[in-house]
């Protein structure tokens, strides 16, 4: 643990950062497509919220691709998409909201894990600004799912997604 700042950290992603950010990018692309599946099924009241959240994830994937440049993966994470495509478009509006609350909580946990390994500050700043909003997504989706308890909205017990479980 650094006690004094003697050397400024790098700004650009390091070679290690590139693989980690590439995994995050594949997940964001999958989430964009999952929201596209869910939006028509999310219920009339919630449709605009789902559409906006899907656009946010699209913006994240574009920003990550911009940061990675030619090192950016060009496709979504198929394993992750396949695992949740069924749940994203089935069930009541409240059930779909609960599914996406869990997914957003998983993304918060994943990005926190990503943040803890990044050396470059440009990637760290971007991931931090994404975490800030994905946590808000999760809270809103919990409320749309009909959850009233503060623990249900505030506590994130999700595990970080790993490349071993969802290989790119």
């Amino acid at each position, binding site marked *: *643990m650094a006690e004094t700042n003697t050397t400024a950290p790098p700004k650009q992603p390091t070679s290690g950062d590139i693989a980690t950010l590439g995994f995050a990018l594949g997940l964001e692309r999958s989430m964009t497509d999952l929201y596209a599946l869910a939006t028509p099924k999310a219920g009339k009241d919630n449709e605009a919220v789902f559409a906006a959240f899907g656009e946010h994830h699209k913006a994240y994937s574009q920003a990550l691709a911009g940061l990675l440049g030619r090192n950016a993966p060009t496709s979504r994470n198929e394993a992750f998409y396949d695992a949740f495509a069924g749940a994203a478009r089935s069930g009541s509006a409240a059930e779909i909201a609960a599914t996406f609350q869990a997914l957003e909580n998983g993304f918060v946990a994943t990005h926190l894990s990503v943040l803890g390994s990044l050396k470059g500050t440009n990637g760290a700043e971007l991931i931090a600004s994404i975490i800030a909003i994905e946590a808000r997504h999760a809270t809103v989706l919990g409320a749309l799912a009909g959850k009233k308890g503060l623990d249900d909205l505030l506590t994130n017990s999700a595990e970080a997604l790993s490349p071993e479980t969802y290989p790119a």
Partner: protein
Amino acid sequence: MTSLNGSDAFSRRKFLQTGGLALASAAVLAACGKDGAAGGESGIPRLGVAPTTTGLPDAPVTDLVLLRTAQSVEHNAIDAYAAALGLGLFTGDAAALGNVVKRFQADHRAHSDALGGLIKEAKGEAYDCANPQINKLYITPAIDLIVGNKDAGIEPSDTPLDDLLVLAHGLESLAAATYQYYVSLLTDPALRAAAMSIGEQEGRHATILAQAINPGVAGVLPSIDPDTGRENVAAVPGAYGSLKTINVAVGKPSESGSKPSLNMETPSLNSMIYDYMSCS
């Protein structure tokens, strides 16, 4: 029309006269200095004698300073919620909101404890009290606007409970933004993740408070109040966490109908808790 080339103001004679005056002035100023023409030890001519000043201690912005500052912000929130609960407004229909406030206050205590652990691990000294600058600039003035301050001629708000929610939302947003901003300053990646694991919790607090102020699906995404033309509070105000100034409008409205407002900013160089500072 006078041509520039033909103007007296730019004639060679005027230029020489002005230049001569400047040289003469410099000579007089140099003669007035303590050591005459030499201009003192620095060699710079000066007028009169400047008092000696004491500089601030050398205080680099280290990871420890950032953690201590974040901890101080947690105490700002703890104290602000204590003050809010002490007003006795969370009764009747508002009792449920009082429980939310108590929960958030407990969360901030837990955050402070977590930060204290990180600080001790890094051989630093925990800062278990509120950030004085944030108290001075934002919280004390906001509370005065809400409950009134006779000495300062401030009348109390007509809607104190609503204003407390607005203030709480502002403080939670400030805390969330502080952690996000500090990610760019912290050098240790593990500390960045630890900071954001708290910051995302502050964002969730802010989301719940935003829904209390502007409830339902209509309050989730950004919108504009058609009557005032101002932005409504939104649970999810944008695609990315914002670091912009946080506007908090509380207190008795003016004749024009607008409430006094404070602009909150994340703690920067003039409000950080440096190593030489301690709670007292």
